[in-house]
């Protein structure tokens, strides 16, 4: 990387740095929205897991094939 490029890269943050910092209230609301979205996704995922869950159990002893006893 040339000296010019290094210099340019160093200056980029100064040019693109936002002049207005997000307010605490905006931050708080953003976090609340993230929380609601996360739990909405958890609800959708949970419901879809439950709906597509198996209808028969491979571990049920009731359905276990009983071995023949005696001739």
């Amino acid at each position, binding site marked *: 990387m040339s000296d010019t490029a290094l210099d340019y890269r160093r200056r980029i943050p100064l040019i693109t740095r936002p002049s207005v910092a997000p307010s*605490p209230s905006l*931050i708080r609301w953003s*976090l*609340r929205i*993230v*929380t609601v979205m*996360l*739990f909405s*996704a*958890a*609800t959708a*995922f*949970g*419901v879809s*897991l*439950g*709906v597509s*869950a*198996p*209808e*028969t*159990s*491979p*571990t*049920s*002893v*009731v359905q*276990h*094939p*009983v*071995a023949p*006893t005696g001739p």
Partner: protein
Amino acid sequence: MRLPRLTATLILVLVWLGAALAVLQSFTTAELPIRLGASLVAHVTGMAAGYAAAIMLILMSRSPWLERGVGSHRLARWHAWGGPVVIMLTVIHTLAATQAWAEAGSLDPMAAAKEVLDLPGLATALIGTAILVLVGLASLRVLRRRISYEQWHFLHLLTYLAVAFGFAHQLAGPDLVGRQWLQIAWSLLYTYAFALVLRWRVLQPLFQLWRHRLRVEEVRQESPDVISVLMSGAHLDELRAEPGQFFRWRFLRGQTWRSAYPFSLSAPPTCNRLRITVKTCGDGTRRIARIPIGTLVFAEGPYGGLTSRRRRRPRVLLIAGGVGITPMRALFEVIDLPGKDVTLVYRASREQDLVLKHELDEIAERSGARVVYLVGPSTDTANDMSAPALNRIVGDLSDHDVYLCASPRLAARVRESLMDRGFPRQQLHEERFNF
């Protein structure tokens, strides 16, 4: 929007109610007439273990509802009690289910175990059980002393994997199949538990890292084996941390980033600075003493209810033992009472172990509060910390709120003595760090 307050009693009622429903569920699917045998034991322990595993995740999710309503040390105590119960239930379930399979197929136990392992989802469930057993063994006091905190912590993180492995098996278990509403409810229990963990143990600290950009500003030697770490950052007032609270700190450097250490603030937080004071007694804490200036800090918190908000009585007694002075030092500066009726009793084995002494003296002089140093062997009657001795120091002990932070042994001694003398439990406020 203010969060509704969840009390410990309410949480316990809900947890036990859920446990009763989960266990009763296994009776409704049992063959009639219900017989006490391996099959019934497998059903009951399986449902109870699956339910308790999800509850353990929720209790340790660091959700502010739980942390504020129940308190960190009580949650940790429930976890310490519930963790071994989950492991025992899982192991009993594994053995009983194999036995039930053997009985149903007229097989010997080894042949039954082999057959069971070939069933879908059972191999991963067994790996999950093995992880849980490993974590349980590592937490036994005998073995716990032989492994580092980092190794123990890493093993504990594996429990998330173990719980996830067990979930697929539970959903296809005979107690849930064919009852879609129950399968949905069970899935939601688990997805919500993991969402809580993701929200409060991952996203929140990441957000705080981005927002506050906390960095080590100074590492100061307070005594031969105690250091203070001063950290600076932006918008720290938004954390709403209070003196007496603690964070779990992760110093983002090669050897320290993997472990989160619980340390209390040792000075009241400001809008751009936080300070902790640490005893360097293990490999991890020694590494913190050598942490380079400028290191980024990932902080989870604030946690704990050892704050001045808990105060109910007109007078306050702060009791600190050794490095337990850290939350007390912060509280000592901010507890503001009419007449400044605040006494700090600070116990240490040697004079050089009295860390932050100059700060305590300065606060006492400025505010009119009192500091009493008890230095020397515990066999010395002058260093007695029983309820009658504390009563002699402060006058009418029953008129005080007592804040306590000390080594587990000293804290237990003080607590038992206070309780034996009929000191009201609600006037004793503690933070216990015991990992």
